[in-house]
C-alpha cells in the first residue's frame, strides 16, 4: 500500500519535473545563442549573425511561454479523483413518457461515449416503461478518469422536440435529471478511509415471503440499506440473488457517501476561493437539446454546438466535456493567481 502511494506521488510530480527540465534546457540553449551572437567572429559573418538572432528570438519565445502558460498550469493541484470510476443515475423528470424516451436517448449517448473512451459501461439497474422508454436507470462506467469527465454531466438535461407520440406536431419540453457519483472498488477502499461502519447501517429485505424457505421458490431478492447518520437509503432489486443486490446496494451507498464527502470538501474550498466553478447543483438546468434547430446548448459556459446528431453519437458530447473541464481549470487558475488581499 505504501509503495502504491509513493508511486502515485511520483507520477503526480512527473509534470513538475518535466517542466523544470525543459526550462533549464531551453535556458541553456538561449544563453549559448546569446553568447554566439556576442562573439566577434559571428558579428563579422552576416549570415551567421542572422541565424543566431533568429535562434535567440525563438528560444526567448519558448521561455516566455513556459513562464506564462506552463508554470501557472502546474499550480493546479492534480485531481484527487482521477482514478475514480463513475456511477451515473438518470431519472426522467417533467414530460411524462417523452421524458422516458429522452432518457433512453441519453443513456445510448453515454454508452457510445464509453465505447470511444474505453470505459466499461454496465447498466446496474433500470426501470422500463411501456413503449421503449426508461423511467430511471443506474449505470456504472469503469475506467480511469471516468468520474472526472462525467461529473460535469450532473444536472438537469432538457429536450425540446415534437414527441413521436404527439399527433398534433406540437413541440414539448421534457427533462431528465442526471447525477454522477464517484465509484470506488470494494478492494480499493482501505479500512481507514472507509466511509461508514456496519453499526450505522440498517439492512432490510423487502416483501414478505410467507413461510419462506422450502415453501417458496419465487425470486424475491430486493434489499434496502439505510445509512442512519445521513438518512441515505438505497434499494436494489435488479439482481437475481439477495447477496448480489446487497453488494450492489453497498456499492451505491459508498458512492453516495463519497460524493457527500467530496461535495463538502469542495464547499470548504469554495469558502476560501470564491471563483471556483459552482459545483454540481443538481437541480440546475445545464443543457438543452433542441431537435427543431438541431442544436445543443450548454448553459453553464454558453457553448452551442449546431450538430445535435454528433452530440447524441458521443463525439460532440466529448467536445462539451472538454470545454467544461477546461473552463474549470481556467477558473481554478484565475483564482490562484488572484492576489490574496482582494479575496
Amino acid at each position, binding site marked *: 500500500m505504501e509503495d502504491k502511494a509513493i508511486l502515485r506521488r511520483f507520477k503526480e510530480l512527473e509534470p513538475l519535473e518535466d517542466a523544470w527540465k525543459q526550462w533549464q534546457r531551453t535556458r541553456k540553449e538561449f544563453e549559448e545563442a546569446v553568447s554566439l551572437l556576442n562573439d566577434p567572429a559571428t558579428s563579422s559573418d552576416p549570415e551567421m549573425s542572422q541565424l543566431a538572432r533568429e535562434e535567440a528570438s525563438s528560444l526567448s519565445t519558448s521561455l516566455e511561454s513556459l513562464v506564462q502558460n506552463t508554470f501557472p498550469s502546474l499550480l493546479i493541484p492534480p485531481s484527487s479523483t482521477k482514478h475514480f470510476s463513475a456511477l451515473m443515475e438518470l431519472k426522467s423528470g417533467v414530460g411524462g413518457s417523452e421524458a422516458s424516451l429522452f432518457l433512453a436517448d441519453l443513456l445510448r449517448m453515454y454508452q457510445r461515449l464509453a465505447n470511444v473512451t474505453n470505459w466499461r459501461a454496465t447498466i446496474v439497474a433500470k426501470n422500463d416503461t411501456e413503449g421503449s422508454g426508461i423511467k430511471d436507470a443506474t449505470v456504472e462506467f469503469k475506467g480511469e478518469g471516468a468520474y472526472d469527465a462525467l461529473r460535469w454531466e450532473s444536472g438537469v438535461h432538457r429536450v425540446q422536440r415534437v414527441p413521436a407520440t404527439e399527433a398534433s406536431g406540437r413541440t414539448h419540453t421534457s427533462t431528465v435529471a442526471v447525477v454522477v457519483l464517484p465509484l470506488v472498488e470494494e478492494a480499493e477502499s482501505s479500512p481507514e478511509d472507509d466511509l461508514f461502519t456496519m453499526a450505522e447501517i440498517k439492512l432490510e429485505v423487502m416483501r414478505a415471503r410467507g413461510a419462506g424457505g*422450502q*415453501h417458496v421458490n419465487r*425470486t*424475491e431478492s430486493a434489499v434496502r440499506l439505510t445509512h442512519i447518520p445521513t438518512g441515505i437509503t438505497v434499494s436494489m432489486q*435488479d439482481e*437475481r440473488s439477495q447477496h448480489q443486490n446487497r453488494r450492489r446496494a453497498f456499492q451505491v451507498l459508498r458512492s453516495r457517501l463519497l460524493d457527500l464527502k467530496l461535495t463538502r470538501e469542495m464547499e470548504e474550498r469554495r469558502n476560501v476561493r470564491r471563483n471556483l466553478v459552482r459545483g454540481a447543483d443538481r437541480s440546475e438546468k445545464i443543457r438543452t437539446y433542441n431537435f427543431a434547430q438541431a442544436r445543443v446548448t450548454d448553459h453553464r459556459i454558453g457553448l452551442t454546438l449546431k450538430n445535435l446528431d454528433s452530440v447524441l453519437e458521443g463525439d460532440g458530447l466529448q467536445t462539451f466535456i472538454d470545454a467544461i473541464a477546461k473552463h474549470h481549470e481556467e477558473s481554478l487558475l484565475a483564482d490562484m493567481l488572484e492576489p490574496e488581499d482582494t479575496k
Partner: protein
Amino acid sequence: MLLRLLSSSLGRSQAARELRWMQQARDSGASCLSLEDMVNRRLTGEPLQYILGTQPFGPLNLLTRPPVLIPRPETENWVIKLAETLSPTPSKPVTLLDLGTGSGCIPLLLCHLWPPGSINAHAVDVSTHALRLAEDNAKLCGFPSRSSEEKPHNTFSSHKANFLAQDFSQVASRINPAFDIITSNPPYIPFDEYLKLSPSVLNFEDPKALFGGPSGLEFYHAIARLVSSKDILRPDAMVALEVGHNQARSVESIMRATGRFRLTEIWLDPWGKQRTVIAHV
C-alpha cells in the same frame, strides 16, 4: 406482449425483472431457448430457476435442474453467516457432512468462502439426480473430490445414501470416521402444508426434497439418531440445521434431547423467521 402475459401471472414489476433476466440469459448464451419459450414455460408455473438453468448462491452461480430443490435465499443467508462464524485454516482444516445436499449449495458455498485446504466436504443424498447435479456444480466451482499433494484444495465428494435408514451412522463412519460440522436443509414440510404449496413448488420440485413426513420433523429425528451414535461428532463439533417457519423450537428440543450438545441457538432469516438451529457439542 410477452411482458403483458407474464404480468398477468406475476404482477408487473416482478414480470419486468424476470423478463430482463430471461433476456440476459439468452443474450449471454447461457440459455439457448427463445424468449417466447421461456415465457410460455414460466406461464405454466415452472420456476424461473429451472428455465434459466442457474441460480446465484452467494458469489457462486450454481446450476439448477428439475426436480432437484432450488437453492433458497434463506439458505444462502445462514450459510454465509456460518462461514463468518467459523474460521478453519489449512493448518486446522474441518471435515463436514451435508445431509440431503440437493444441488450441493451448502458445502460448495463453504468451500468457496473458506481458504483453500481448510475444508473437506462430504455430501449425501438419496437422489441420483441430486448427486449428479451436485457433482456438476462441484466441477463448475472447481472443487475436486481429493486434495492434491502440491497445492492445497478444498474438497467436495458426494455419496449416495439414505440418512433415514437405521444403519446410516455406519455408512457415515465409512465416509469419514468423524465430523467437525454437520449441516442439513432436510425436507421439512409437514403433510397439511405440503398440499397447500404453490404449484411452482408442488408440481416441479422433488417431493423427496420437501416432504418431511406427517409432522415435518421426521428427518430431524434421524439426524438426532445419527449424532447420538458414538464418535460421529468430534469434540467441539457443530450442527447447523435449516428448519421450517415454525419448527425451530421443536427441532431445538429434539437436538437437546440427545444430550450431545452443551449449547443451542436459533438464527433468524432476513425476513424475521426462526430459520436455523445451531447446536454446539
